């Protein structure tokens, strides 16, 4: 069974440009999460989809970030326009279950974004 897949693995863009990250969750997982790790700090939650709906987007840093999950399958995270402080590793995770039955998430390898 394929795990969580993220594309691209690395991206280097100039300040002001747009970048789109993609995440393919494990098939059948309704829950999809985006996390970010900036400059060796802790990995922080960005948002949570349940199927195609945004369940919790409290971690999104600002309106330059737009996440979508059309059809409840793969998700994209767009950063437009990118700023230097957006550099970091973006992780995607997926899981099954609802509420307290939602106990374990499977993580992708991450996308390393560098804004120069």
């Amino acid at each position, binding site marked *: 069974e394929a795990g969580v897949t*993220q594309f691209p693995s690395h991206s280097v863009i100039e300040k002001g440009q747009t970048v789109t990250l993609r995440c393919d969750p494990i098939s059948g997982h309704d*829950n999809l*999460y985006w*996390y970010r790790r900036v400059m*060796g*700090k*802790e*990995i*922080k*939650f960005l948002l*949570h989809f349940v199927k195609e709906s945004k369940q*919790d987007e409290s971690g999104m840093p600002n309106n330059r970030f737009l996440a979508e999950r059309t059809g409840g399958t793969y998700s994209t995270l767009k950063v437009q326009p990118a700023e230097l402080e957006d550099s970091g590793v973006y*992780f995607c*995770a997926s*899981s099954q*279950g609802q*509420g*307290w039955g*939602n*106990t*374990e*998430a*499977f*993580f*992708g*390898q*991450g996308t390393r974004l560098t804004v120069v």
Partner: protein
Amino acid sequence: AQSVTQLDSQVPVFEEAPVELRCNYSSSVSVYLFWYVQYPNQGLQLLLKYLSGSTLVESINGFEAEFNKSQTSFHLRKPSVHISDTAEYFCAVSDQGKFYFGSGTKLNVKP
């Protein structure tokens, strides 16, 4: 609110020596606890988890962690480390699927 503290950002240790990576958490509700590992140039991999039952949990590669509710800790231990254990280790708590991570501990095993 949940939070996780990993006090040690780096832990150097010689091969075959024991190691303990510390993790403390704060939570207002019951939580599930995890250790994830990130080997160089790889993604996050689940190492072990505590959901319920026995407070001592083990991984397949010799790591163990003990959930201590009174001390709100979930320290990771291994009695004898290998060079291949060199990686960054993340402690995390899960609240209905949403994870709160510590800042990570880099374990550097030296020959």
